[in-house]
């Protein structure tokens, strides 16, 4: 249990308690957006190396969705925020 994620609600927990959904930087297109745009949103993903924002679900802890910003090469974690808070910050 090497990789620790600092959940804002639960504290330091091993990655085994989480499940990773993927890229957290995508923005859902409007319902009337083109098929091409929806196709990109649903299916097309970059595979970056380095600093990356992901949705993590603390499935075995608080069961909250989190936005984890980390380096997927060194696994340095830069920030962990509750996804609801992160969404509010985007809207504001």
């Amino acid at each position, binding site marked *: *249990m090497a990789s620790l994620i600092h959940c804002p*609600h*639960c*504290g*330091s*927990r*091993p990655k*085994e*308690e989480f499940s990773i959904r993927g890229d957290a930087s995508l923005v859902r297109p409007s319902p009337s957006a083109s098929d091409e745009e929806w196709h990109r949103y649903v299916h097309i993903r970059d595979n970056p190396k380095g600093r990356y924002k992901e949705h993590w679900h603390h*499935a*075995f*802890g*608080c*069961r*909250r969705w989190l936005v984890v910003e980390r380096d997927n090469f060194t696994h340095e974690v830069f920030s962990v925020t*509750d996804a609801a808070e992160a969404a509010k910050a985007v809207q504001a």
Partner: protein
Amino acid sequence: MNYVHRHVLEDLITGFEGSSNPHHLAVLKRPTVFSVLARPGREADARNVLANLQGVSVRISGPGEWLVVSEDVAIDSLARTLQDSGTGLFDAVDQSDGRVVLRLSGPQVRKILAKCLAVDLHADAFPVGASAATQCCHAAANLARTDQDTFELVVSRSFAGFVFEEILEMGREFAMTAGFSAG
């Protein structure tokens, strides 16, 4: 018609007899367990109301979310209390039949739990009264420290048999015994 209450671990505990060793796993026979979820923005008020309830133990299960556990207060009675005191603050659902409460005790209990649990259990990090939603033996569990050498795990009914057997296995080096709690 009579309904006979059978605990889900009844078959696993048959055969464990009499006296308990210093390291013991007690299964609460008929615990009262409620899950409570605060209304948005009322988390602090809800927490205060729960903290003032008599005869119950309040465990953290997420932000604005708790498990209320009791050995003494009956299910009906706690349901009424929570209904009356929670109006506008929180909603409570009875989980007593869906959860199993395991109580581990003994001088080396931390060593036993450390085999399958990734929460720091040192008294400085996890003092008496602390609780956490976490993973125990790969199953979701709510952990609470009820005394210096006593911890309680609340696991869902369907995982209880597995977790029970795993804990006994981990406690074997300390000759851990198991049985239903006297209460």
